[in-house]
């Protein structure tokens, strides 16, 4: 038994963990592939890669969101950051700036938004991150709306650079390659460096982490800056497939990204989960979206499936835990 404030430490040795969340995710991933093969004749590697860039952009933010969730924070402003960064990049494009400058502006705007979030949250530590990012969510989209003017949309005038970004090497899309690289980097930092381990420490117990000399606020701020920058990357790849932005660009991205992380086994209460699971979960959802689009099923039906997956994926561990707790209690009672 542990109270609200404390966590119990289980000292009984674990009997070979039979079921890992990641294993289950791989099974689901394979199931989706088999499902795709059965229901759609046009489902093959080539068609999957061809349809992929449209859905991949969100995944860039997923890794950084994983960090944010692991330190027990949340950032719901990322969708609006994507919108703002995409809008500003469109302006830069229409002004005739070179591609490199556009990329810098896109990433810069994202990073700046992240800095703002991070600074507010580190200076006002007593505020929940949900409220602050709710405020900045409305503000960032508001700035984008104001700068777009009454038309409510803006498009790239010179699409050459971004079309190249959305292209592919052979049949493999550039976005896919970059995501794999990003995944490796993010997973490495989280699981093999002290910074990553510090994040888990902060997420498990904020106060203990502080007293053991971890610079909690610095890491928090950096995580928010990082997710801002990744939102900039997301905006770039989104522009590479849509060539423009409007007032609804990026709406709901934050929830999509959080749901990928949660489906991948990261707990929003912090300190639990890893990015390997989240990556598999992200690719599963992307693949599912592609399969359904190949079947010409309306994009909205997938919402139901994602929702059910999400709820079931958080319910299973919790029910599992309750059953083991009951068993432990029964065993204790039997001993007595």
């Amino acid at each position: 038994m542990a109270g609200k404030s404390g966590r119990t430490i289980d000292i009984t040795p674990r009997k070979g963990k039979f079921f890992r969340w990641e294993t289950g995710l791989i099974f689901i991933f394979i199931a989706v592939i088999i499902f795709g093969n059965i229901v759609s004749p046009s489902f093959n590697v080539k068609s999957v890669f061809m349809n992929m860039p449209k859905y991949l952009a969100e995944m860039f933010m997923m890794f950084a969101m994983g960090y944010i969730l692991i330190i027990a924070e949340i950032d719901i402003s990322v969708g609006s950051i994507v919108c703002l960064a995409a809008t500003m990049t469109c302006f830069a494009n229409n002004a005739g700036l070179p591609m490199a400058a556009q990329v810098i502006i896109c990433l810069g705007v994202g990073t700046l938004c992240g800095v703002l979030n991070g600074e507010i949250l580190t200076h006002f530590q007593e505020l929940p991150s949900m409220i602050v990012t709710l405020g900045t969510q409305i503000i960032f989209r508001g700035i984008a709306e104001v700068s777009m003017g009454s038309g409510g949309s803006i498009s790239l005038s010179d699409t050459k650079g971004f079309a190249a970004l959305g292209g592919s090497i052979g049949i493999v899309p550039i976005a896919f390659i970059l995501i794999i690289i990003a995944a490796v980097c993010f997973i490495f930092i989280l699981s093999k460096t002290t910074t990553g381990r510090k994040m888990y420490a902060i997420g498990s117990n904020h106060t203990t982490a502080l007293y053991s000399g971890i610079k909690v606020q610095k890491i928090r701020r950096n995580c928010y800056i990082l997710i801002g920058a990744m939102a900039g990357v997301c905006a770039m790849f989104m522009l590479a497939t849509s060539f423009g932005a409007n007032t609804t660009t990026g709406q709901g991205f934050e929830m999509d990204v959080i749901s990928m992380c949660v489906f991948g086994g990261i707990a929003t209460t912090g300190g639990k989960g890893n990015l390997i699971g989240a990556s598999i979960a992200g690719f599963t959802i992307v693949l599912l979206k592609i399969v359904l689009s190949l079947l010409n099923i309306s994009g909205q039906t997938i919402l139901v499936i994602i929702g059910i997956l999400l709820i079931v994926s958080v319910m299973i561990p919790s029910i599992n835990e309750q059953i083991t707790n009951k068993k432990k209690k029964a065993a204790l009672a039997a001993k007595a």
Partner: protein
Amino acid sequence: MEEKTSVWKRLRSSREVSLVLILVIMLIAVECIQYFGGNGHFLSPTNIGQIFRNNALTMLMALGMLCVLLTAGIDISIASTLGFCGMVVGMLQKNHICQNTLLLFLLAAVIGLGCGLLNGLIIAKCHIAPIIVSMGFMYIWRGLAYVVSGNQWASGADVAHFAEFGKDGSAGPYIVLIVAYVAFFIIMKWTRFGRRIYAVGSNSEAASVSGINVDRVLISVYMIMGFLAGLSGALSVSIYASAQPNMQYGKEMDVIAACVIGGVSMNGGRGSVVGTFLGALFYAVLAKALPLVGLDSIWQNLIKGVVVLAVVLLNTLTQRAMDRSNLERREM
């Protein structure tokens, strides 16, 4: 003399009073700009009516959100519940299955209640973070709204009779609002159930030890939220005379923002019906006043966001100052 200062202090520290003051100042300012600009009164009955009518949904759902936030939870599925219930109501009329206004309202509310029950059951019984569960349902109900609609939408002609209830000039939305606010004011202040919500929000362990069935309170809180969201779904169809599957997308954030402005704490246990009302009203007046003082509607979101953030930050600063002065007094 001493009593006077204490009254003044109590007034100053009360969130409701400061909100009323800000509201009054804002109203006077807008009224002056309007009146001396030769555009008639801002506070005309039509304008006031519109302020309430246009924001009836936010105001109604803010009550449910108040209960949810009081238990330190959050429900972001409400806009989807609203969309689903509204879409069901719209499609029933489009296919000429049911045209009875009262029956349709009841149906929407009952569906919403069911949605809330599911939400609450999983949150309370499985001990999962409310934001995750309601996020899942946010997808599910919105998806189902699209499924129910079958890629169609109910237009003004389809819901003509139903729209009589909420059309401009009809008393319907106001009656719903007044009844809801009076009922909630009484429930939250003077009934056992209302106080239990506060108890669970302040300290759920203490509440549980003192004999409150925490799970039951949690479930009923989410049921109330679902009920109000369902009702708002029907109301939305009635007010805007149309039902689309993506209606009121993102409304949950407006509702949460209104509560936060009204002084409801997201950590649970703090907040009041009056505060919620003032917060929602503040949001509503702002939306109505901005175009009148010469700012385009595209500026609305930006200013709304700045206001939300400013209110939250100011609140923290005053709280800090108050804590510090309390500490100093104790040291003396």
